[in-house]
C-alpha cells in the first residue's frame, strides 16, 4: 500500500513561518487541503512536489526520504501549481510531448499518453493549436493533462478547478474520483463543493499548521448543531454580520434569509439546518477575518 508520510515539516522564509510542524500520513485516495489565503497550503504542496526544501522535518514515500529519492520520487509525481505558464508558440501536442520526455517517458509511450490525456481533458480537437490561442479554461485543462501525463502515484493539484466552467469542474471531479483508487491525490481548493463528495479526508490548515483532519462526514458532524437559518429585515443585517459568521444571504418575500454559523442560537426564530462543507469552512476560517479586522482596529 502506498504511503506518504509528512513528518513534522516546517518552512520559514526569512522572518515568516509559512508552515509549522505539519504532520500527516496519507494513503491512496483523495485528500482535500482547505484553508484561507496565507494558510501555507501552496508552500506545503511545493514541499511535497520537491521544488521547495523544508526548513525542518522530512517527507517519506513508502519509508524513503523524498529528498534522497530525488528523480525516483518525482517519477511518481504529478504536480499542477495554482499559477503556471505555457510556451505560447507550442501546440498542445508539442507541449505535452516535451513534458512527457521531462517526466521520463520514452518516445512511443509519450505519443500514446499525450493522446490519452488530451482525450481525458477534452482537448483532442485543439491538439494542434498554438497555446497562445487557448482560453484560460483550456490552459487549466491542459495543466491537468500535464499533471496526469506520467500516470502519477502521487497527484498534487493546487486549485485545479479555478477558471473551469461548471461542466468541466464536474468532469474533473469525476476524473479525480476515478483515478484516486490506487494513488494519493492531494488537492487544495476554495470551491468546497469540489471536494464534498470525492475527498476521503479533509485537512484544514490555518497559519501554517494542520488544525483538523477528518472525513467530510465528521467535519459536517462537527458543526451539526451550529448552522442556523433565519429571516431578518434589511436594516438588521449589518448588526448580524458584525456579531456572527454569516454565510449565504438570499432575498425572499418576507425579508432577507441568512445562513449563520454559530455555537449558540443567534436569534429566537433561527432554526437549525443541515450543514454543508461551506458552513464548515466558514466555521473554521471566518474567525481569521474577524481577528484580522479587530487587530487592525486596535
Amino acid at each position, binding site marked *: 500500500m502506498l504511503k506518504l508520510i509528512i513528518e513534522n515539516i516546517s518552512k520559514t522564509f526569512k522572518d515568516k513561518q509559512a508552515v509549522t510542524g505539519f504532520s500527516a500520513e496519507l494513503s491512496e485516495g483523495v485528500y482535500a487541503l482547505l484553508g484561507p489565503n496565507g494558510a501555507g497550503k501552496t508552500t506545503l504542496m511545493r514541499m511535497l512536489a520537491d521544488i521547495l526544501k523544508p526548513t525542518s522535518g522530512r517527507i517519506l514515500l513508502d519509508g524513503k526520504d523524498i529528498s534522497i529519492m530525488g528523480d525516483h520520487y518525482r517519477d511518481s509525481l504529478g504536480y499542477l501549481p495554482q499559477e503556471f505558464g505555457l510556451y505560447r508558440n507550442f501546440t498542445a501536442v508539442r507541449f505535452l510531448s516535451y513534458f512527457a*520526455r521531462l517526466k521520463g517517458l520514452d518516445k512511443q509511450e509519450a505519443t500514446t499518453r499525450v493522446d490519452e490525456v488530451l482525450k481525458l481533458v477534452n482537448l483532442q480537437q485543439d491538439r494542434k493549436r498554438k497555446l497562445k490561442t487557448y482560453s484560460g479554461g483550456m490552459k487549466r485543462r491542459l495543466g491537468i493533462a500535464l499533471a496526469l501525463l506520467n500516470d502519477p502515484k502521487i497527484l498534487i493539484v493546487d486549485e485545479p478547478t479555478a477558471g473551469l466552467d461548471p461542466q468541466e469542474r464536474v468532469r474533473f471531479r469525476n476524473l479525480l474520483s476515478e483515478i484516486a483508487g490506487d494513488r494519493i491525490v492531494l488537492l487544495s481548493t476554495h470551491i468546497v463543493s469540489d471536494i464534498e463528495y470525492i475527498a476521503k479526508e479533509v485537512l484544514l490548515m490555518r497559519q501554517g499548521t494542520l488544525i483538523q483532519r477528518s472525513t467530510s462526514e465528521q467535519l459536517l458532524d462537527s458543526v451539526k448543531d451550529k448552522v442556523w437559518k433565519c429571516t431578518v429585515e434589511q436594516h438588521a443585517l449589518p448588526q448580524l454580520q458584525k456579531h456572527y459568521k454569516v454565510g449565504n444571504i438570499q432575498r425572499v418575500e418576507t425579508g432577507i434569509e441568512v445562513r449563520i454559523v454559530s455555537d449558540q442560537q443567534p436569534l429566537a426564530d433561527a432554526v437549525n439546518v443541515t450543514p454543508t462543507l461551506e458552513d464548515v469552512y466558514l466555521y473554521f476560517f471566518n474567525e481569521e477575518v474577524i481577528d484580522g479586522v479587530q487587530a487592525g482596529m486596535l
Partner: protein
Amino acid sequence: MYRQECYKIFSKKSIYLVFITIVLLLVYVHQLPTDMTMRESVFEELEETWGGPVTEEKVERARESMNAADAGEVSNHTFELRATDYVQFLVTGAAMQKQDQSERLTMLEAEMHDFDEGTYEHREAAIEHDMLQALDDVHGFYLIRSWREMFELIEPTTHVLLLSILIFLGLSPVFADEYTNRTTDLILATKHGKTKLVSAKLLASLSYIVIVFLSLQIINSFLNLLKFGGIAGWDAPIQGISSGLDSLSRLSYDGSPYNFDVWQFFLLTIALQLFASIAVGVIVLLLSFLTKNTMITFFVSSIIIATPALLQQLGTTDGFLGYLTDFSFLKLMQVSTLFTQFQAYNLFDYPVLYPYLLFILFAVVTGLLIMLTYRLFRNQQISH
C-alpha cells in the same frame, strides 16, 4: 527534450532578423571598393618573379626599382605598375622583418647569457628564441587571397560585436524565459527537470552557437572568395599576411613568432573562436538563470564583453585592470589578435604563452561555470 529546447531557441524571429542584417552588412562591406585585392592575374605573374622567401637579390632589385620610381624614372600610372610597386614594397618590408627577427634573436641570446638558467627571464628569452629560430625563411611575398579576411568578420572588434549580439539574443532567454513564462514549477517537479533539462538546454545552446558561428564563417568565406578570387596562399606562412592595401583588417602577422601555415592558422582561429563563442554562451546561460530576466541578461552580458574595450579606449590598462583586459571574454573572442606577437605570462616562474594561457584559463572557467549552472539549477527552490 533537446529538440524542443532547440525549437524554443530557433523559433524566435528576432535572431533571423539580426542574422539577415549581419549578412547584409557583410555583403555591403565586402563590396566596398579597395585599392587592390590581388585577384588580378598580374599578381600571379608578380608572384613568379617576387614570390617565396625574401632573398638579397630580390630585395636589391626591388629597392632599385622603387628608387627609380621615386626619382620619377618609371611611371606607376597603370594598374600593373602600381601592383608591381606594391609587391616590391611588400618584399622590402619582408626583408626588414627578416632583419628585425635576426636582431631579436641576437638580443635574446644576450639575455639568455645575462640571466641564470633557472630564472624567469632566461626561460622567457629561451622560449621566444626557440620559436623564432624554428621559423624557417618565413618572410617574403606570398600571393594570399581569400584568407586575408577569413580570420574574422570584417575586423576583430566588429567580429566580437556581431557574434555577441547573436549569442546574447539567442541565449539570454534560455533560462530566463522559463521564469517569465512561469513554467519553472512544472519543470522542476518532473523526473528529469532538475538535471537532464540543463544538459538539453546546454546542448541546444551549443547547437545554436555552432550553427550561427559556422553559418557566418561560411558566408564570410564565400564573400571573401568572391572578393579575392581564389584560395591561393593556403600553404604560405602566416608571416606573409601583412596589413596592406588589400585587406580591411589592420592585423599583421609579419612579426609573429608562431610557426603556422595559413590553412593551419585558419583552422586554429576557427576552432578557438568557436570555443570562445561557447565560453561566452555559457556565461550568458548562467546570467540568464541568475537574473531570470532576458533584458537584464542581455544588458549584463554586453557590459562584460564591452568593459575591456572601454578600458582600452580610455587607456587604463595598467596593473590589475590590464590583467582584467588581457584575460577577458573580449580578448578571448578576438582570437586573430592573439598571435601577432610574442607575449608570455609568468606562472610560478615559468613563462606561458599568452594565447595558450588565456584558453586554458577560460576552458577551466567555462567548465566551472557549467558545473555551477547545473548545481544552482538543481538546488533552486521555488518560493515566489
